[in-house]
């Protein structure tokens, strides 16, 4: 399947991606039929019976390649250093983020002041999980705060939103209403038999656990099957850089390959800020390219840790 990006005609064109107008959104109908969400579902299911077969030795080969890169990093840091947990922001972001200082590899301090885009991202992700789980969302701001309030590590974010003045809260609520509107149009309703689950965490240890590659699938459907690519992954971005979000999907596909021996066979990315999406097949070239990038980045980090 050739990657194709769909978005409403009025949305700004970015990143030089192919844009197709799926037509004006109609009134919500029953199930997934006749809407953008129906199209997302159809593209996820398209030719799903002909799932690609991946080389059974691919996962082992990719792991060996990454182990070499991680080994060099561990050698520079020393055996007694704490395990290094690396996520997509550090591994896929601009290389100049890896400033040559030890601070780069230090644990991030607890935040109390959050940029507005980060706040929106957390809240939209919470609403996305609710939409997938129950199919409905009430007042977006209230629901998102109720959901995040159950995670102790989000207490700082909740306090931050609580300190916003009335005008900022109104703007935040309007932004969430806009984004959840797009998500309602885009997010398919997955039957329980598809095994939809949200926030599926991956943590792939390398070098005996001294380097850990981390990531989170926003939504996975399907069950892992030995020897077969059997999963679909849907990721969400709420206005962040589109190209970065697409690269991060390939990163997650690589981690899934290392976890279960096969990548997802299809990936989707939903942009709740403008209502566009892309669906694409995973190919071995994606995984090799991502592994190559990670080895290079691990080498950069090894240099930065001097």
């Amino acid at each position, binding site marked *: 399947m050739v990657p194709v990006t769909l978005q409403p005609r009025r949305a700004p064109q970015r990143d030089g991606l192919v844009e197709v107008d799926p037509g004006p959104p109609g009134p919500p109908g029953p199930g997934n039929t006749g809407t953008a969400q129906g199209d997302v579902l159809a593209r996820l299911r398209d030719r799903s019976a002909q799932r690609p077969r991946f080389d059974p030795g691919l996962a082992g080969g990719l792991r060996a390649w990454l182990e070499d890169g991680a080994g060099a990093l561990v050698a520079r840091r020393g055996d007694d250093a704490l395990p290094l947990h690396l996520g997509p922001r550090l591994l896929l972001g601009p290389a100049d983020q890896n400033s040559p200082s030890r601070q780069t590899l230090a644990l991030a301090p607890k935040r109390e002041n959050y940029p507005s885009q980060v706040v929106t991202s957390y809240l939209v992700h919470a609403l996305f*999980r609710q939409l997938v789980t129950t199919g409905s969302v009430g007042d977006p701001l209230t629901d998102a705060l*109720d959901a995040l309030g159950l995670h102790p590590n989000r207490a700082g974010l909740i306090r931050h939103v609580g300190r916003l003045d009335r005008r900022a809260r109104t703007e935040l609520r309007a932004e969430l209403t806009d984004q959840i509107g797009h998500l309602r149009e885009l997010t398919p309703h997955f039957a329980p038999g598809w*095994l939809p*689950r949200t926030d599926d965490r991956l943590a792939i240890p390398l070098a005996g656990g001294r380097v850990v590659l981390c990531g989170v699938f926003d939504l996975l459907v399907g*069950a*892992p099957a*030995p020897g077969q690519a059997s999963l679909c992954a849907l990721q969400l971005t709420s206005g962040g850089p589109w190209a970065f979000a697409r690269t991060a999907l390939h990163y997650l596909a690589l981690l899934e390959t*290392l976890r*279960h021996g096969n990548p997802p066979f299809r990936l989707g990315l939903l942009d709740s800020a403008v209502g566009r999406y892309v669906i694409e097949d995973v190919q071995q070239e994606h995984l090799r390219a991502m592994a190559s990038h990670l080895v290079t980045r691990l080498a950069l980090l090894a240099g930065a840790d001097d």
Partner: protein
Amino acid sequence: MTELVGQAGLAGLAGLPAASGLPAPSPLTVALLRPLRADHCLVSSAEIERLSAELGALVAHRPGGPFRLTDYLVRTTLWPSASPGPSSPFAWSAGTARRGIGLAAVRSLVAGTTQSPVDGVGLAVSRAISDERGGRGPISSMGQWLAGLTAAGRAAVQADAVTWATRLWSSLDWKAFDSPPVIGRDHWWDSPHSSLLAIRSRAEVRGSSTDGRGNPVSVHLVVLGGPRRAAVRSELSLVALAEALRTGDPQPPGRIVGWWPDSGHFVSLEVDQVTLSLGVATVARTVALLGASERGSGAAA
């Protein structure tokens, strides 16, 4: 101690034949259910009794007791750097509720009461709330907590539990179990020699396999979180020890498998003399450290 380290999807493990026309069992299923080695020796009942007495003697006259040892207490006592941060009093959250709800969901799936993790979690949550509101069954603090949540809060709890349950449900081939597995029942061993010592055996799935002579043995799957760590063998040996010491179970423990869903890795320990000795050593070190910290805080006071 025979130890197997593996990873889902990367290495086929011999031991369980695939039924004709069906896909091969998952590597985790094979690692859990395959027969023990032909030369595996179960620990004798006399040796079990000796270990029981040894453990009772360990805690006699120790400060810091009573000792109710869990895998969590062992991990945080022996390897404090592995702890994510300062411990805080227990409170229900999406994270602390997902295992209990997820286990109830998998239990209903295995029993055939529900057909998917989403349905199983929905049933578990609605039952907990209706029992709480109807005053049925014992008082459940989780039921009280769930009943007080908003719809969005409950959805967040359900979302976490669905993910937890789906990972466990889809990792094992449930038809490979000869008899229905036991899902999520923790066991406690209370020392007959000292009221100061109890050891918990936490396992998410318990089934049966056979030893080298074809005799039935119990096998136990433990779902692990956090990073891979050296402490895991000690944590799993505690489960093995508690299972071996418990009386009244017709099947002696044969194998403990620890599994990390985040990475797909698993580690398997067969329950033999070496594993149980590691379990006793783990208890001894934990009790000594807990007693020392008690003495230290007493001296400071």
